């Protein structure tokens, strides 16, 4: 199986169709295309040996091609509530910054996450967070809260947990249950733009990319039965209704599956019966369930060892 590398292309809209065609010829995948005015952002997976070819074309088009290590990762940015204390700064800044290297982020505000003694999360919220690949919890400025009180919000979270908070001197091991702690992103009422804040966001991106890499490495030992990007392409070909969806990422890739932003009741059979050239249907390769997010469809792809083969 060809190794695919994640890249982000940024350039003018003019002739960017050539890149899309090239990607089809090479067997790569366009994960997301965002057109803003005269600019276009293409997030794509390029076969390792063909990166030079794409680079050459992007140079001809006067665009920029850069690595996007969080491509195909869906991240939950969890803030204790959606009150003005956490939004729009810093939770939005964190979510926005994580999107630079290609991640899809969803902001989740817990209903009752605020406070020390009283904070709690609901079963529904935990299940919703667990649908993602990585959870980033944005906490406040008191080290006492971060180390002693808030970690109870991690109960029942099965995915890797990243915590952001104000205190710089805290270490990851001081926060029970967290896989990574990043300081200097606490409660602020201004945009994160001072040097130390932007540095903290950079180290957040770096840390999250490492966690994503680790998950990929674990996966490589027992690969998925089918690449999520390939399922994405098949859905685009076989379920034309996906083109009418207005959500920013109608098909959101995850490390071990994807979220299809179509109503479950109407479309789950079509998705289950999705056919591949090898003669198998998607329901043999993946668990398809109702997503906790709206009424979407969640596909979690089984591993090769479960299915017995991979395509």
């Amino acid at each position, binding site marked *: 199986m060809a190794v695919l590398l994640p890249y982000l292309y940024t350039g003018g809209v003019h002739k960017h169709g050539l890149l899309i065609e090239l990607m089809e010829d090479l067997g790569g995948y366009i994960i997301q295309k965002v057109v803003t005015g005269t600019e276009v952002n293409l997030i794509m997976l390029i076969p390792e040996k063909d990166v030079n070819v794409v680079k050459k074309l992007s140079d001809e088009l006067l665009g920029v091609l850069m690595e996007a290590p969080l491509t195909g990762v869906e991240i939950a940015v969890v803030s204790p509530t959606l009150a003005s204390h956490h939004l729009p700064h810093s939770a939005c800044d964190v979510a926005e910054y994580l999107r630079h290297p290609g991640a899809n982020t969803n902001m989740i505000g817990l209903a009752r996450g*605020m406070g020390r003694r009283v904070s709690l999360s609901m079963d529904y919220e935990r299940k919703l967070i667990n649908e993602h690949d990585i959870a980033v919890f944005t906490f406040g400025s008191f080290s006492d809260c971060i180390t002693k009180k808030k970690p109870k919000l991690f109960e029942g979270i099965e995915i890797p947990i990243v915590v952001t908070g104000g205190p710089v001197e805290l270490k990851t091991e001081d926060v029970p249950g967290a896989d990574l702690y990043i300081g200097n992103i606490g409660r602020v009422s201004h945009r994160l733009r001072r040097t130390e804040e932007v540095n903290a966001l950079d180290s957040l991106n770096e840390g999250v990319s490492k966690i994503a890499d680790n998950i990929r490495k674990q996966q490589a030992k027992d690969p998925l039965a089918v690449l999520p990007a390939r399922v994405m392409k098949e859905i685009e070909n076989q379920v034309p209704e996906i083109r009418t969806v207005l959500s920013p990422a109608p098909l959101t890739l995850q490390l071990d599956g994807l979220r299809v932003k179509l109503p479950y009741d109407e479309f789950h059979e079509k998705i289950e019966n999705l056919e591949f050239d090898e003669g198998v249907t998607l329901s043999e390769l993946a668990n398809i369930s109702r997503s906790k997010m709206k009424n979407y469809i969640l596909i979690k792809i089984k591993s090769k060892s479960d299915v017995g083969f991979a395509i």
Partner: protein
Amino acid sequence: MPQAMWRSEVRMDSLETFVVESAIDSEQEFYRKIIEDNLASLKLAPAIGRIKVVLKPEDSLFQMAIILRDVGTKVTTIDIADVESKPVAGEVVISIKKEQYIPELLVKLWERYGKANISQPDRWTVTISTDKPAEEAAFIKEMMVADPRHRLHENLVDFAIRATPEGFRVRYHLYKGNHFVFVASEEALKREWIEEAGAMLDELTEGGEK
């Protein structure tokens, strides 16, 4: 005590004293910054003379005492603009001198004359078409545009809630004369916490007499 006395007692610069206390230094800095940002976004900094905040996260406690500066009296149109009647054209022309009150002024004018009769040829001018320019001009001159004290109270409460850690939802607030005391916690408030905040206020008041 009458309010006028409170006010005449205190003469001070804006943010003459700005103290944030907490057991951990770095946390003080964070809260200082949060308070600064919120003061700035609510445009409260000029109205506040002295402020002291004490944070005790281990007790889930936030205490704040503020001494306000003289906030001024009610503002009428004539304080902020020249009003001129143009009988021939059937117009009243308002030439603005203090721009910060334009939103309040416009809201009052729209209510009375309707948006269709009001135009703003430039940033400093508002023209109103009316049948009785002379009488309307006289009325507009005396019209109250803003009551800074009322607005200040609203903003102070908003500021206190924005600055407090979000979970601290049991609150006590006192606004009397130019003194403002705010205590918030997650637990039921203890009497001594409020008394402590009162002591902070006394400390601030004395601070100015030195």
